[in-house]
């Protein structure tokens, strides 16, 4: 087998937000993404799971350069893109697209479906004539399972699932190599979620696009992803092949998160012993000094509250926990 190509590489990425109120108050920094490293291979899906506020969306948005990172490097297709501007940034935006969570808010209600899907092609000057673009829009509509005559309609005439299809068609319009899917299914009904997941999988198979798939629904993430990263309070605490992480979680947070998923099988669900975590996620404004999970971890020792564990390799997996130190 040929060497697997790394399409996206993130090294020690940090994204901070200054939330200081008033000029005389002490400085308050939200460490939304704190020292994250990950690799996504070409044509694969990297799933990012975690609870709200863990920084998974911020990480996705920093990767597509919607936020400026505080420090750290992002390599896309071998090129350092952490500080590109102007024409270079525009070229990068053509390669990397995004699908958003809320299909109601992410489409301009005053533009027709055709205009929405055409706009990225106009911006990136794909095709010379409008007719060619129009033809491409029709083709894209077919790919995402909509009808060609939907082109003159407005987003308000579509259901949530159909709108998400429009969002996918818009992302595909510029032939991207990489798509960041930020919770693309969490606003949809169960029977529609499966439609969108299958659509994304088929598109990946045909066009060899890599995904960063951000979601809190671990069952779906496990289904669609090749690799999974589990985020907690701005850190990736564990990452590795999807099935391994699910079958044999190493980090105590991963175990707790997995045991909390409701399984849709009454015998298993009613017998299942949950690891119930005490308390809630600490504020990222003053994160704990040691391991981010130490305040809720059932296995925490005194050392965990003092020192931050470095990521270590355990088999195929990377985990940040003192339990696995040799």
């Amino acid at each position: 087998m040929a060497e697997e190509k790394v399409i996206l590489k993130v090294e020690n990425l940090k994204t901070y937000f200054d939330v200081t109120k008033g000029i005389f108050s002490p400085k308050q920094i939200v460490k939304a993404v704190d020292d994250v490293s990950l690799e996504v291979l070409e044509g694969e899906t990297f799933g990012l799971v975690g609870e709200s506020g863990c920084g998974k969306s911020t990480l996705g948005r920093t990767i597509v350069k919607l936020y400026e990172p505080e420090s750290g490097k992002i390599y896309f297709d071998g090129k350092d893109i952490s500080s590109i501007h102007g024409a270079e940034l525009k070229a990068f935006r053509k390669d990397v697209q995004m699908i958003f969570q809320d299909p109601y808010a992410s489409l301009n209600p005053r533009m027709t479906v055709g205009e929405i899907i055409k706009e990225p092609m106009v911006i990136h000057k794909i095709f010379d004539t409008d007719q060619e673009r129009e033809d491409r829009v029709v083709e894209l509509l077919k790919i995402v399972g909509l009808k060609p005559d939907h082109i003159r309609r407005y987003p308000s005439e579509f259901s949530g699932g159909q709108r998400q299809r429009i969002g996918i068609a818009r992302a595909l319009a510029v032939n991207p190599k990489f798509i960041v899917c930020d919770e693309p299914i969490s606003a949809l009904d169960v029977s529609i979620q499966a439609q969108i997941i299958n659509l994304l999988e088929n598109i990946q198979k045909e066009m060899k696009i890599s995904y960063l798939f951000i979601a809190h629904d671990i069952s779906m993430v496990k289904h669609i992803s090749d690799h999974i990263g589990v985020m907690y309070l701005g850190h990736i605490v564990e990452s590795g092949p999807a099935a391994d992480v699910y079958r044999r979680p190493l980090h105590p947070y991963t175990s707790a998160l997995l045991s909390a998923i409701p399984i849709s099988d009454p015998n298993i669900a009613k017998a299942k012993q949950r690891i119930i975590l005490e308390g809630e996620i600490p504020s990222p404004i003053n994160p704990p000094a040691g391991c981010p999970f130490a305040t809720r971890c059932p296995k925490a020792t005194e050392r965990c509250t003092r020192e931050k564990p470095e990521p270590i390799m355990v088999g195929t997996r990377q985990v940040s926990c003192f339990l696995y130190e040799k």
Partner: protein
Amino acid sequence: MSLLKVEDLTTVFHTDQGTVQAVRDVSFELKEGEVLGIVGESGSGKSQTMYSIMGLLADNGVVESGKVTFDGEDISRSAFATKKEYEDKMRTIRGNKMAMIFQDPMTFLNPVLRIETQLVEPLMNHTNMSRAEAKERALELMRMVGIPSPEKRIRQYPFEFSGGMRQRIIIAIALTCNPKLIIADEPTTALDVTIQAQVLELIDNLRKETNSAVILITHDLGVVAKLCDRVAIMYGGKLVEIGTDKDIFYDPQHPYTKGLLECIANPEDDEDKPLHPIAGSPPDLLSPPAGCPFVDRCEKAMRVCKQYMPPVTEFSEEHKARCWLQDPRAKEV
């Protein structure tokens, strides 16, 4: 004896676009201390069924027909001569014998009132407790739902609580008068998984302690599997299948129930089989199909399904479905 009995409930909404037939001919029963899950997609009528029972419909909503018996009393709108009589009666029941937990913990609580006021008020309204006694009971309830240092937190305002903690407060408010029935409308949808696990565990423990019956409205089959004794599946305003948890998950009869179970990813499967989504989208309830509401998305639809509403077929005393395929008159398929 059943605690709640709903017979042929039909609710419509009059809108500018026409009449929306939100709940069509829904019947079910609930025993004391039982947990019934009502599952359906958005717009399937699951929440409106509950609002109709409690008399909480929006102004343009009308219960057209049907009978609701709760705790031996007929509480259907038609049992009362005037709207005022009905509403006065319902006001003595809601928050007292029948309580509700809402989906969004952010909007349910009044942001300008202390938690204390919001917990003490229903107690003073529905019982003869003095303010001091009511406060004592409020603290006890806060302890029961697992809120640390309740003496301090009872003086706080809702914005000082996190989502999971607010949902606990709402559960505490629901429990104030030892209700016989708790209706929980998507109680954990707005919460994170680990917090959802805490809240579900709490609801499960509390209902065992208090022996309240629970109706859990949700679209999450995992939550249903964890908590419910019986499950009702709604689609297009109709109750299409009802049975015990085992009936629904291991022996589903209606094609929609089967489809629903097939389109969720089971993380316990090692090989990731492709999902089987149900093609199409739910019917428009402004003009629902004359026959089965699921006919346009059903792989096994027959000619009869389009024209006539399928009757209810009983597989056992508990397990019923509304589908022509199961009708004894249908040809073997």
